[in-house]
C-alpha cells in the first residue's frame, strides 16, 4: 500500500513547458504569484486565469491532475470564504439576519480569494508537474548560489534535498518490510482504536530510525570514498543552458504582469 505514494508530482513529458530551463521556470512562477496578488479587479483575475490556462494547455498535462491538486483545498477555501463573508462589514448590505450581515464587499473578497488561491495552486502545480524534483533542487541551488557569499549553506541544503529524494523510495520499501515483519510477530498495526494504532506505530518507527541512521553512516563513508568535500570546486554533469525560448517565456510573463499592474 505504501508503494503507491508518489513523491513530487512529476508528470514526464516533452512539451515546451517541460523543456524550459528550470531556473527560468522558478522565476516565472514567482512573477506569476506576484501577478495574481497585484490585480484586484475581475479583469485582472481573468488575465491571470487566461495565462494559467494557456500554460496548462502548453504543458500537455491532463487537466484532471490540476483538479486533483485543487480538490484537497476545497474545504479550506469554503471555510475561509464563509468567514470572510461574515466578517467583512463594509459595502452595501445584501442580506441580514439578527447580527449576521452579508455585504457586497464581503462576497467580492471571498470570490476573489477562491479564484486566486485556485489559480495559485494550479499555476505552481505546472512547475512541479513539468520539473522533476532532482532538477528542481538543482535549479534552486543555482538560483540561490549568490547567497553563498553570505555564508548561507546553499550547497549543503541542496545536497540534503538530493539525498532525501534519493532515499524516500528506499525507506518506504523498508517501512513496508518492517510492517510485514511486525505483523508476522502478531502486531496489530491497522486495527484497534486511534491510540492503539498510534502506539503500535512505535514498533515500526524505532527500527526504521535505527536503520536510517545506519544507512546515513554507510552513505557518509561511501561519499568520502568518492572524494566528497563539500561544495567548493565542484563541477556538474547536469548543464543548465538558457535558450531563446526561456527569455521569450520570461518576457511574456512580464508582459502579463505589466498588463495587470496597468489595469489595477
Amino acid at each position, binding site marked *: 500500500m505504501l508503494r503507491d505514494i508518489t513523491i513530487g508530482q512529476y508528470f514526464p513529458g516533452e512539451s515546451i513547458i517541460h523543456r524550459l530551463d528550470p531556473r527560468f521556470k522558478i522565476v516565472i512562477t514567482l512573477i506569476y504569484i506576484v501577478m495574481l496578488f497585484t490585480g484586484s479587479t475581475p479583469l485582472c483575475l481573468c488575465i491571470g486565469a487566461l495565462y494559467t490556462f494557456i500554460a496548462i494547455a502548453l504543458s500537455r498535462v491532463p487537466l484532471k491532475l490540476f483538479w486533483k491538486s485543487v480538490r484537497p483545498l476545497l474545504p479550506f477555501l469554503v471555510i475561509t470564504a464563509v468567514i470572510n463573508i461574515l466578517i467583512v462589514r463594509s459595502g452595501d448590505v445584501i442580506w441580514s439576519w439578527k447580527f449576521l450581515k452579508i455585504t457586497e464587499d464581503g462576497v467580492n473578497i471571498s470570490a476573489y480569494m477562491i479564484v486566486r488561491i485556485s489559480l495559485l495552486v494550479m499555476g505552481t502545480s505546472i512547475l512541479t508537474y513539468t520539473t522533476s524534483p532532482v532538477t528542481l533542487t538543482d535549479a534552486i541551488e543555482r538560483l540561490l548560489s549568490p547567497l553563498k557569499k553570505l555564508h548561507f549553506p546553499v550547497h549543503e541544503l541542496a545536497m540534503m534535498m538530493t539525498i532525501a529524494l534519493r532515499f524516500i523510495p528506499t525507506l518506504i520499501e523498508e517501512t513496508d518490510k518492517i510492517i510485514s515483519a511486525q505483523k508476522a510477530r502478531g502486531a496489530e498495526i491497522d486495527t484497534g482504536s486511534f491510540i492503539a494504532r498510534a502506539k503500535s506505530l512505535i514498533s515500526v518507527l524505532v527500527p526504521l530510525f535505527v536503520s536510517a541512521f545506519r544507512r546515513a553512516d554507510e552513505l557518509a563513508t561511501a561519499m568520502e570514498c568518492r572524494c566528497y568535500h563539500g561544495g567548493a*570546486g565542484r563541477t556538474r554533469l547536469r548543464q543548465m543552458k538558457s535558450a531563446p525560448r526561456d527569455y521569450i517565456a520570461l518576457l511574456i510573463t512580464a508582459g502579463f504582469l505589466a498588463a495587470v499592474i496597468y489595469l489595477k
Partner: protein
Amino acid sequence: MKNIIEIENLHFSYPAEEDTEPAEVLKGIDLSIGEGELVAILGHNGSGKSTLAKHINAILLPTEGKVTVNGIDTADEEKLFELRQCAGMVFQNPDNQIVSSIVEEDVAFALENLGVPYEEMRRRVDDALKAVGMYEYRLHSPAQLSGGQKQRIAIAGIIAMQPKCIILDEPTAMLDPQGRREVLATVQRMNREQGVTIVLITHYMDEAAQCGRVVVIDKGSLAMDGTPREVFSQVERIKALGLDVPQAAELAYELRKAGCDIPEGILTEEECAEALLALINN
C-alpha cells in the same frame, strides 16, 4: 611486477570505550599486492578482513605500521583525494552508497567532487556505464533497478574515477545468484581488459576460486596466501579456520578420504566432473 599496495606490519585497534579494553583487530599484517592482480581476501566474520580493506583507502589509519598505495602513504592527509582516486572502494549494500536519484548523476558524483570539466566528465561517465553494461539505464532511477544492477552502478561510480585499484567489500553478499554473477563478471572483466588491480573481500568460496590469488585472514593475522589451488587443497587447514572449500574441492576431498582414486588440487566443477568420469571409466 610492481607492487601497488604495500602493507607493512599493520596493527589496528578500535579505541577503548567505557569499561572495555581496546580491541586489537589487526595484529601485524604484511601483505603486498602487485599491479593487475585479482586477489580475494577470505576470513570468517570478525576476522578483520573488512577492517583491513578500510586501511587501503584511508577510511581507517593504522595504529602501528604503514600502508602505501601506489607510493602514497595513507597517513598523508595532503594526498588524501589522490589516494582515494587511485584506490576506489565498493561496499556491501548498494542502496547505501548511491547518492543521486538518477543513475548517470550518481556515476558522475566522484568526478563532480574532483572538479573534472564537463566534456571529460561526460565521456568518462558514459565509458564507465558502458564498462558495467548499464549504459541504457543511465536516465533511470536506482529505485527501479535490481540489486545486481545497483551494485554495478556503484562500481561504475568508482570506475569513472579511473582508479588503479578497486577494493570491493563483500559486494555480492546482499545479491541474488543472478546479481552475484553479473557483479563478479564485471569485476573480472575490469581486471582482464583494463588491468585494474582488484581486491575482492568475500565469504563465497566459489568467488575466491575464480581469483588469481587467495589471502586468508584469521583473528587479525595473515593465515594463508597463495593461488586458489594451493589454498583450497589444504582442506583441513581451511576447515580449522572456520571456512569452507568450494563444493567441487570438498567433494574430491571427501572421495579421496573414502579411498577413491581422485587427483589432488581439484577446484572447479568441470575438473571434478572429468575426474569422476575418469574414475567411473576405469
